[in-house]
């Protein structure tokens, strides 16, 4: 009888112990799961954007992220890195691991359009650690002192379509500076045309042939793969405002007034009409506008944004190669 009672007591104690143990083990396990992973909810910018906008990290320490969306499709990527972009679908968790080997401040951003304020969905990752900080040299438009806010109408434009093939025929007669990448980068096509037109050695060429030469120079400074990269970047990031055909009539800017260079409405803060004084972007198929701009000017515009048009700044996101690819793609609209 006593023995039975003792067994019963032991059993009761054992069961109570097991019951408590289950919760303790579960809690410990959960702790381990969430200890080194950060959970981020993505929401439309109007509803709060990223739930976490700044992350502190150290070099060579992996960061585990658990991402989910509370409303629409979002994406996650880190600017100026090779980290592949991940899509975030509402109601699903997606995990990704980041690893930085250089200290610095990185920008993470949303990669899928989620409304007019999509580009505002950005956050920073502060990576500390040994080694030289990732710093970016001042962009070329600052070094060259180009004012990216002024109008840049082309002084001259070609009368008909240009042909780089024809231009390549005169390659041997050209002065040496035209093949310098620096010349390409800091001059607009119209400027180069005027310089070449003034060359006495090229006086036999017709105006159109000089344009063919300029087109050939522009083709020399790009490649099919660059154009392709530019096209992909343009479709994903720019087309919603600048339009799929580059006409500046993207679906996000439909309700905005058109750019009017005669009135200079951008300089007058009192002539605001509609959406906070914002205007539509320029028409890239308009040679007057595009051929008057140098690659340095265009890349400056992409890096800094603004210009009174509500254009976001892409400096922290695109690498130099990506911006060059985009710029060379922009010229393809106008030729």
């Amino acid at each position, binding site marked *: 009888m006593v023995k039975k009672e003792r067994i019963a007591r032991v059993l009761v104690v054992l069961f109570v112990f097991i019951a408590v143990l289950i919760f303790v083990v579960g809690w410990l396990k959960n702790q381990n799961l969430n200890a080194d992973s950060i959970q981020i909810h993505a929401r*439309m910018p109007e509803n709060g954007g990223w739930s976490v906008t700044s992350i502190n990290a150290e070099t060579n320490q992996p960061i585990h992220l658990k991402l989910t969306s509370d*409303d*629409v*499709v979002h994406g996650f990527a880190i600017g100026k890195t090779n980290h592949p972009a991940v899509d975030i*679908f*509402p*109601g699903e968790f997606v995990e990704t691991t980041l690893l930085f080997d250089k200290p610095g401040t990185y920008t993470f951003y949303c990669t*899928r*359009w*989620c*409304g*007019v304020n*999509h580009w505002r969905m950005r956050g920073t990752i502060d990576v500390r650690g040994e080694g030289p900080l990732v710093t970016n040299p001042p962009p070329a438009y600052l070094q060259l002192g180009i004012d990216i806010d002024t109008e840049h109408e082309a002084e001259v434009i070609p009368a008909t379509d240009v042909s780089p093939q024809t231009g390549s025929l005169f390659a041997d007669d050209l002065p040496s500076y035209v093949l310098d990448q620096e010349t390409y980068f800091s001059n607009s096509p119209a400027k180069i045309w005027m310089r070449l037109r003034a060359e006495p050695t090229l006086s036999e060429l017709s105006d159109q042939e000089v344009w063919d030469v300029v087109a050939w120079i522009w083709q020399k400074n790009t490649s099919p793969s660059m154009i392709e990269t530019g096209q992909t970047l343009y*479709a*994903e990031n*720019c*087309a*919603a*405002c600048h339009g*799929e055909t580059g006409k500046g009539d*993207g*679906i*996000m800017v439909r309700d905005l007034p058109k750019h009017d260079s005669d009135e200079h409405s951008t300089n007058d803060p009192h002539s605001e009409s509609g959406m906070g004084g914002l205007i539509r972007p320029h028409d890239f198929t308009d040679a007057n506008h595009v051929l008057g701009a140098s690659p340095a000017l265009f890349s400056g515009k992409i890096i800094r944004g603004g210009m009174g048009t509500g254009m976001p700044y892409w400096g922290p996101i695109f690498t130099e190669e990506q911006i060059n690819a985009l710029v060379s793609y922009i010229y393809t609209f106008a030729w």
Partner: protein
Amino acid sequence: MKSDSVLKNLVKKNWWISLIVLLALLIIFIPLPQSQNDAADRHFQVEASMFQFIPGRIQVNQGDRITLELISTDVVHGLSIDGYDFELIADPGQSQTATFIANKTGVFRFRCSIACGNMHPFMIGKLQVGPNWVLVRGIILGVLAVFAAFLSFRQSSHIQKSTVS
């Protein structure tokens, strides 16, 4: 002999019921000649925004080759058609185009296939292939029912009158 005559009388009096039943069956099941239109190539631009398709209703003929271009104006939207193996997903700035052949007649719903917010389940549209015969048959059937009700009312009041007198 007497019961037989009663039955005959009943049938005679209520012949219209069987006529109406016959008509109703005819309306429901009569096969209609399929309109033999030449298949045409048709292009539609559908704009998707939160939470609607514009146009929300597409009407085509059977056999048409339909090219749909989906333009998204705010967030990522999709378009899938019930009953057809067809889906499009478009980001803003990246409109998508695809073609299918409308070989099934009837009315089909198309809906947003990518979750796009709280009202996403109600983002639907209608694709009508060929004339909507179900609706036409339904209307004729309804008219017939009204006619039958009217007739039965007259008949019953007639019977009542005859029994009273």
